[in-house]
């Protein structure tokens, strides 16, 4: 292997590492804030998760979650934090495409793009409404 390429690989991996850490920390913070609001409001209500009803529609879609979070509803803010969390690995894949392009590795630009397409299909195909 050319030394230049392994240096570049290492650099990409460092940036990826920081990206992952930042994403997880940000999401945990948002979930914590949402959790405190949620518990202050509903902490004394009884739990009801024995039977599956599915979440209300506003907590199932990106648009609905954003509206709820802006209205400072605890559950909406938690869901927003979870969206950040889910977006972290997706951002990692998106960033790898640039990394591979930087290394002129066309084959892996294509490979990473396919992974991103599958992720986009899972997300946009099913939740953006």
């Amino acid at each position, binding site marked *: 292997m050319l030394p230049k390429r392994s240096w570049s690989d290492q650099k990409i991996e460092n940036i990826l590492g920081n990206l992952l850490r930042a994403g*997880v920390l940000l999401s945990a913070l948002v979930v914590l804030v949402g959790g405190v609001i949620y518990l202050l409001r509903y902490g004394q209500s*009884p739990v009801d998760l024995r039977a599956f009803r599915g*979440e209300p529609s506003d907590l199932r*879609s990106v648009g609905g979650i954003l509206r709820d979070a802006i209205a400072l509803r605890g559950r909406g803010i938690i869901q927003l934090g979870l969206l950040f969390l*889910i977006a972290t690995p997706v951002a990692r894949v998106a960033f790898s495409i640039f990394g591979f392009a930087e290394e002129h590795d066309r084959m892996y630009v294509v490979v990473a793009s396919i992974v991103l397409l599958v992720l986009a299909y899972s997300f946009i195909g099913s939740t953006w409404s």
Partner: protein
Amino acid sequence: MTILEFSLLVCGSSLIAGLVGALTGLGGGVVLVPLLSLLFKVDIRYAIGASLVSVIATSSGAAAAYVKEGFSNIRIGMFLEIATTSGALLGANLAARVSTHAIAIVFGVVLLFSAYFSRKPRSQADREVPPDPLATGLRLNGSFPDADGPRSYNVQHVPTGWALMFGAGALSGLLGIGSGAIKVLAMDQAMKIPFKVSTTTSNFMIGVTAAASAGVYLNRGYIDPGLVMPVMLGVLSGSLLGARILIKVHTKWLRLGFSLVIVLLAIEMLYNGLSGRI
């Protein structure tokens, strides 16, 4: 039970699951679903959703540390992620179509497999395999830092590994687990990738695999914020704590104890699934 009490109890249990999962290297995800559905009587679909989200958190958190060490191979990871994410899409869509009894039974079997896998001795550190034309063409062969400089390795049996990864992704999407054990099995045993490279690359892939199912879960209403909040925060703190004290504890007995817990949970899941209680 009030929501506050429930959240604190779930958060505490998840913290322990994450801590033990990190210390034993078995991951906390595999015990979360049985814990939530058997002990806290949460519907298994909510439990699966909460577990899947926590898996993304722990794997991204751990991968952040691993990638900097230079063990994980991003090309192997990316190439196999095509298989795991497609599998995960299939599994997550399947989760909505099969009965909860069936999910509980499959879960029990996977738990038994995890317990067996955790008792299995790790494969030999030194093995030299010849380069494989397909792996070479895909530029999967790599090197990792060793005591005396970088050591290079060759990758074998790419199609078998790919097929196993598709299966690992499908189970991850169906059960809301990271299925790290199957990913390591595919890389270490089938593709002959060195163990340390296999485990770190597997960890790197788990988050992306789980993200593929997460969109489907969210849309189907499996992700309940009130449940995911304590689970995710608990597991994440537990696994971060576990990574810090990893070096100081003797993990042999802990691994044995944890495997026993997994076997008990497996029997309980199988019993509940077969008798139609879940």
